[in-house]
């Protein structure tokens, strides 16, 4: 089958943009959360 010649992503794909943003912010939130717990635990030692 011939592959599509144009990307299936468009600038107007707002749902995709929101999903993309949420994923990145989720990763950052996880990093901040884990670091906070780790810092708290290290300070208790």
């Amino acid at each position, binding site marked *: 089958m011939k*592959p*599509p*010649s*144009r*990307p*299936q*992503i468009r*600038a107007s*794909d707002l749902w*995709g*943009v929101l*999903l*993309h*943003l949420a*994923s*990145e*912010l989720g*990763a*950052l939130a996880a*990093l*901040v959360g*884990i*670091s*906070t717990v*780790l*810092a*708290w635990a*290290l*300070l208790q*030692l």
Partner: protein
Amino acid sequence: MLLRPHREDVAAILYYQGRVMWLMAAAGLIPATVAMLASEWRPLGWFLTMSGVAALGGAATDRLRPASQLRWGNGMVVVALTWLLVPAVSAIPFALSGHFRNVLDALFEAMSGFTATGLSVMADLDHSPVSLTVWRQTTQFLGGQGIVLAALTLFAGGGILALYQGEGRDERIFPSVRSTSRFIWLVAAWHGLVGIGILWSLGVFHLGYSPGRALLHAFSIFVGAFDTGGFAPMSTSLAYYRSVAVELVTMWLMLAGAISFGVHYALWRGPRRVHRNLETRTLAGSLAATTALLLGGLVMTGAYGDVASLVRRGLFQVLSAHTSTGFATVGTSDLLAWGGLAFAAIATAMALGGMGSSTSGGVKALRVGLTLKILANTVREVLLPEHSVIGSSFYQNGRKELTDRLARSVMAISLLFVALYLFGALIGLFYGYPLDDALFESVSAAGTVGLSVGITQPGMPVGLETTYIFLMWAGRLEFIALFALVGFVVAAVRGR
């Protein structure tokens, strides 16, 4: 037997170099426009001079249009030369500005910008003309997004695939190079829209800046973070703002900048098992490990007594180092006072780097993950009975076999990065710097990070400055294009 390159090969290389020069001529109009809007007439002359020189280079090679497609090897030579010529041309405004001690300093700054490193030798940065700041920041954007990729988007034509692969962005997300380029620009555009929007709002409503000043700072932080460059508009980097909100937005942009475009695609289209990829897992693991080391080191030295300060300073710095951005929220003296373990954690994070097919530098997560897998296999070989057959595979957008050929290539590039780090450190030692400082600065340059312990500054020794320029160039090209250039020169001299 080495074959001497044909005249057509040289003509093709010069022709594509000329295309890039036309792009540079156009890029110079960005700061020139800003200079006109800000009534900065002398800087306007600097940018027009640069655009003129670039246009002359472009016009001189226009007639050399090759009849056939560019060969892969020649494409590599174009990439290597592009990263030498483009910084040289874009250094013209820096050299004319008076903010640099000499031409070498101007070239250093331009190379640092185009390789998205962020080390700076600029004097009196805080009183720089607005248009010069915009140009300094734009170099990171052009370099980060790929000057070659930009040339592809604008001058797409025959033989573009060879150029594209040399860029290091060899991830085929879409069926054509052109559509992949469009997607890469689209990701940058919407991150820019949201990122600059939030930072501008913070500047106006939170920091009390005028709308124009807020826009300059928002643009500067966005390109510095998303293109993992690290140039900041103020000499104290991100510490200037003293704002948790600005730091959090910057952390998001740095993280986004260190993610490969394949993962960006997957995140946009919906989670597609990217969490299973060896690259994602290695990056998550090395980020967690270096953060733990850094926090442990900071607790040991007692640098910060509360959780909030520890996380705010520590996490930002380790993320800045790991994504190879180079923004700092602590001064050089504070960084030096952080102690051995925290210092080593940052140096390690810088050496490892982010994902491939992103703007970050360093060895890169997939190579690190594969290197660890290869080492584990080697240990298994020793432990298992003789003649045991060991098969190995890894998950990266599907299950793939770890062949001997792939293993050799991964180990070679990883070792070359280590050799480059050590070479830079040796030169630093030669100039009398202590080992830890020399190694830190060398890793920062070769990993295109930009964090500094103070070795890089106006007035640094010429030999060391030249070495760092080489480190940034070689680290950005990941050696392959560099070898192609050396091979081309050797073949031209000794070939038949």
